[in-house]
């Protein structure tokens, strides 16, 4: 895990409060893009920061139900 990944893990609860139900992109320990479309969020993060591999993750809703297969 790199610094951005560790930052996401450490701040996940805060991210749920702020971005629940949306995708975010994290570069240099900052949320640089967010929105409902994963592709648009990653494209925007690359365009804004030039990062080759932004950390893009969907933040779950606080009251959502964790579902698997």
């Amino acid at each position, binding site marked *: *895990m790199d610094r951005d*990944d*560790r930052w*996401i*893990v*450490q701040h*996940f*609860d805060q991210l*749920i409060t702020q971005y629940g139900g949306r*995708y975010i992109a994290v570069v240099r320990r900052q949320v640089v893009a967010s929105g409902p*479309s*994963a*592709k648009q969020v*990653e494209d925007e993060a690359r365009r804004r920061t030039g990062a080759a*591999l*932004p*950390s*893009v*993750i*969907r933040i*779950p809703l*606080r009251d*959502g*139900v*964790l*579902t*698997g*297969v």
Partner: protein
Amino acid sequence: MRFSYTRYRGGQAPIIPIQVRGRRRWHKVWVYVDSGASHSILRPEEAQRLGVTDLLPQRVAMRSSGGRTLAIKLYRLAARLGTWRGLVTFGVPQGFDLDFNLLGRQDVFEHFIISFREREGQLTFTPRRRARRPRRR
């Protein structure tokens, strides 16, 4: 490789980043490591991000659940986990969704000894050594 669990809903969950090769480039993808899932699953939105939905699926699997028939398109994609690289079959569900991408057993678990250390909140992947071929005489 050691990953910290992600704090989630007052608890913690084994949600980790891996890398997956999309249509044009590598992408970082966060997955819930699920030892109860036979296959890995990409959310449809994530499959679109990777450009995978433009590709022809390897096949379409049908599953029955709760009286419904569910279709899952299967794609075989290159993936990286630490220094390990391999091909992993990812299912992309059609008409239903999940909260997280899943990293299931097929194509992945056989290459590692995986420890879910719930108390410490850590997940470790220890690569298995490849079996040596017997020497020719």
